[in-house]
């Protein structure tokens, strides 16, 4: 194998990610001794680290300054603005509720207005008229109770949804492309299927230490990690998860093609044996 500038540029990431073997590293070291251009490139990338270190120190000073700053008058302004904003919002809700009323903004008839009506018959009418708006006024009071907080609904999964798009617990979006080069085992589970999560956990314990295998337990957005489960979790981002239903699994090869499907339910030993054979076949060492 010959290491030249083109080879080195192609494998620059592998060099910085410690993915080269001992022989390749030796060849790279020999190449760097003689090639000024590649040496400069490596040095320029390494020079970024001290700058980032200084940046973190600078940001730390800003954070500490903000934490130890004297009490700001702006906070009082903020508090007053907050109160004002709340009051304005309540007033807006009231006005909105009154104007949206299909029976119009009529309120109770004032007492002096009924006194102006002169005949006995109109007195009786006035009593009836005044009675109706009184009850209406009671029902017109908007409900000022805080709205019930509902969990974020799961996005609807349509035929046009992406085949595989999930978020990891840190919030980063992951697609099938992120796992290219690895055999991917995806188990789909939900909060009402603890046995599916346990199956994924058993598979993670069996195959989690294989370098070329990635295991993901995919579930809905509002599901919390069950106690005792350590497998990598991901939350479905409205994708079809490669047409995999809950409590099922799918094995994807290094090129992103589905190679195996099945159910997570049933005999766990048989399931593990079946998946082990498929992973061995796909090169998931």
């Amino acid at each position, binding site marked *: 194998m010959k290491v030249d500038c083109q080879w080195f540029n192609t494998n620059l990431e592998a060099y910085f990610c410690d993915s080269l073997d001992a022989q390749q590293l030796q060849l790279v070291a020999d190449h760097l001794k003689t090639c000024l251009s590649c040496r400069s490139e490596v040095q320029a990338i390494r020079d970024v680290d001290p700058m980032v270190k200084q940046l973190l120190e600078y940001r730390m000073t800003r954070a500490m300054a903000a934490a130890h700053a004297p*009490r700001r008058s702006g906070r009082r302004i*903020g508090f007053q603005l907050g109160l004002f904003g709340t009051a304005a919002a309540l007033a807006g809700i009231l006005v909105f509720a009154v104007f949206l009323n299909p029976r119009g903004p009529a309120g109770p008839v004032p007492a002096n207005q009924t006194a102006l009506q002169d005949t006995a018959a109109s007195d009786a009418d006035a009593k009836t008229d005044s009675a109706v708006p009184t009850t209406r006024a009671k029902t017109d009071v908007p409900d000022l109770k805080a709205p019930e907080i509902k969990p974020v609904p799961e996005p609807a999964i349509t035929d046009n949804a992406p085949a595989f798009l999930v978020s990891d617990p840190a919030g980063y979006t992951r697609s099938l492309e992120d796992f290219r080069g690895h055999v991917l085992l995806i188990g789909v589970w939900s909060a009402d299927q603890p046995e599916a999560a346990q199956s994924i956990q058993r598979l993670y314990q069996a195959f989690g230490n294989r370098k070329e295998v990635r295991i993901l337990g995919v579930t809905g957005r509002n599901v919390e990690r069950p106690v005792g489960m350590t497998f990598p979790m991901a939350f479905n981002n409205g994708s079809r998860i490669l047409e995999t239903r809950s409590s099922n699994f799918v094995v994807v090869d290094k090129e992103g093609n589905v190679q195996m499907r099945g159910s997570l339910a049933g005999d766990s030993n048989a399931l593990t044996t079946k998946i082990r054979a498929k992973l061995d076949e796909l090169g998931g060492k």
Partner: protein
Amino acid sequence: MLAASEPQFDFETAARDCRPFLLQIAVASARNPVDAEDIVQEALLRGYRGIQRFRGDCPLRIWLSRIVVRVAINHHRSAARRLKRWVFFGDVEMEREDGSHHEFDPPDHSRSIPRERIMDVDRQVSRLPAEFKVPLLMLAVDGMTIPEIADILEIPQGTVKSRVFYARKRLKSALENRLERSKKQ
């Protein structure tokens, strides 16, 4: 390793010990370092409330760091933060404890650092996607290792290395381009 089930477990003491580390993680994760203190406070509160869920399979500071990262993500999205930022712009006066006022003048502890250069790096780092920026800044935290970052962000170590590499490369290119533009001018 601390575990919640241990009878001597004292969350307050452990949190106090972890606090400087968590502040650095918050600074690395937050878009604005000014929010770091609030993020740590909220993360510690959530950690205290959810300490029963701490299984002891990793150091407490790593467990708390995961909470810090999640709080930092949510903090940026929250409307409360935006309101506070809006008020902060108008906050040109500061009030001393005795009630007197003086103009806003933040303490400058960074005189030893070439400020313009740091500001430039800050701008370029801020433009990086969060998935590249956070591991890069976390690696600058004292004593932080790739396995720890992978543990906190719950992503494989190879992914951390790859993201750090691309962050360095993008930052290098951005700073070089800027240097060339300034030379031409």
